[in-house]
């Protein structure tokens, strides 16, 4: 490491071309690299190339026995097979439906509750200890009793999901409301806005950067909780598929399930969350504005 670093440093002081595109040779190679970096496909898939390559290599070298570790071709074959049989689409839609319910109810409960706690000192004083207490009872820890109550049903999974999503969401709403610069509220008041208008026109949009982050975190937690719940409640879904495959010793399905989980989350982020943030927070320049205020 040091042996490669030191010549670079020397060259930097002398005016010769550096290793990483400094100086004269920066030109062509650097620009091509930059162009590559900017292209959407490359940015989306590029980082995975070395990961898949390593995976492939481990498989090809047969570092692990095949019953423990399968390579990309096997997983792709499995994907084709399960798609053809209709198992994967079915399980996938089951999982996504559950996620949809969980997230929907989670937002419906978490957002109003979060704003209530953030806006009213009385509500906050009453709720905060309860909030901390129940936050500590992990989502999965609820499963046993929820199964007793609701059986192995959609309600059970939804309950756990909602539970997982609501807390980070509420905390992010509270943080977001506190983040709204006091001057903005004052400006609105001195322009004639009443309390309700201040809330709707200043507090809510002002809290949005943090709330968007909370939704992202909540969804991420929810996604993980979903898989865990499916493994335990297990009648269908991606989590069930993986666990069931392990039972019959089909490692390729386990690998496939893991890849699907990752890819799906990535797609959710790229197709829904990121565009939402681009259209709001980034467009308003609030990322920078908040930094300047801080």
């Amino acid at each position, binding site marked *: 490491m040091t042996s490669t670093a030191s010549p670079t440093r020397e060259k930097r002081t002398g005016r010769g071309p550096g290793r990483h595109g400094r100086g004269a040779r920066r030109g062509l190679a650097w620009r091509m690299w930059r162009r590559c970096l900017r292209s959407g496909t490359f940015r989306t898939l590029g980082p995975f190339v070395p990961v898949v390559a390593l995976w492939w290599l481990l498989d090809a070298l047969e570092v692990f026995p095949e019953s423990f570790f399968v390579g990309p071709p096997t997983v792709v074959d499995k994907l084709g097979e399960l798609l053809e049989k209709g198992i994967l689409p079915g399980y996938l839609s089951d999982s996504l439906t559950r996620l949809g319910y969980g997230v929907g109810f989670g937002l419906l409960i978490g957002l109003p509750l979060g704003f209530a706690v953030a806006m009213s000192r009385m509500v906050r004083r009453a709720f905060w200890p309860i909030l901390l207490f129940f936050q500590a009872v992990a989502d999965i820890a609820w499963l046993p009793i929820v199964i007793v109550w609701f059986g192995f049903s959609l309600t059970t999974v939804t309950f756990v999901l909602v539970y997982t999503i609501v807390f980070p969401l509420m905390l992010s709403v509270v943080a977001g409301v506190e983040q709204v610069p006091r001057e*903005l509220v004052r*400006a*609105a008041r*001195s*322009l*004639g806005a009443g309390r309700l*208008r201040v809330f709707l026109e200043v507090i809510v949009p002002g809290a949005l950067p943090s709330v968007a982050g909370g939704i992202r975190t909540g969804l991420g937690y929810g996604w993980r909780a979903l898989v865990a719940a499916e493994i335990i409640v297990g009648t269908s879904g991606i989590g069930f598929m993986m666990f069931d495959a392990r039972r019959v010793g089909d490692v390729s399905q386990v690998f496939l399930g893991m890849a699907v989980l990752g890819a799906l989350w990535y797609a959710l982020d790229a197709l829904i969350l990121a565009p939402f943030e681009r259209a709001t927070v980034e467009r308003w*320049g*609030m990322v920078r*504005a908040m930094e300047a205020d801080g």
Partner: protein
Amino acid sequence: MTALKIDRLNKVYTDTYSGEEVTAIADVSFTVREGEFVSVLGPSGCGKTTVLNIVAGFVRQSGGTVVVDGRPVDGPGPDRGVVFQSHALFPWKTVLGNVVFGLRMRGVPRAERNATAEEFLKLVGLDGFAHRYPHELSGGMQQRLGVARVLANEPAVMLMDEPFASIDAQTRRKLQEDLTGIFESRRPTVFFVTHDVDEAVFLSDRIVVLSRRPSRVREIVDVTLPRPRRWQETAELPEFRRIANQVNDLLAGDENEAADGGARAGDAGGEPGAA
């Protein structure tokens, strides 16, 4: 006609930790006539921003009264629009959305408020930027938008809290000239807080010089410079330098007294805006 009357204003803060009482404003009285430009000037930390915050209704006074347009101040209201040092524009609203905000709050119909907005954006030289977002504007343009947003709402008095303090020197001079131009053409009532002596002299009809904390009115200086004012000509006038020197002496005299007196009254809680 008196637009703003401040009478025996007094403000005492209680330090939340020590329970100690700090007098920010001892006794401040003055009036601002309709269509008059009055600056409040004082050493930093003297409580001038506190006076503005009380007039705006953001902070409640401990004693004394503030009357705007015949009504005693009770909380913030659209009759006292504020231009902030930090601009305080709504980043999620376009330039147009910011200007019409006050009119929307008052229920002015869309067509009418858009016409008003256009008029005031033109006044501050922002026509053509209506659909940009604040962060796309330069600091100077942002503050002009801040002025347009308040003026479009036609307040009884426009409160300005060191509005140009965070703007670079070159732009600041331009903005001061623009503000003078707007003032001379439309004659709004302006209450302007600053610590910049030249700025106060250039802009004002009268300057209220405050003492250091606990603040009292040290002197009210009449600025009789002719209008329209332009930096190039106005700063050349012997009268300009005379008034500026007089104000500087008042402030310096205060510094000396304070140095003799020794102890600085506690800094806690008083005036977060002032550097």
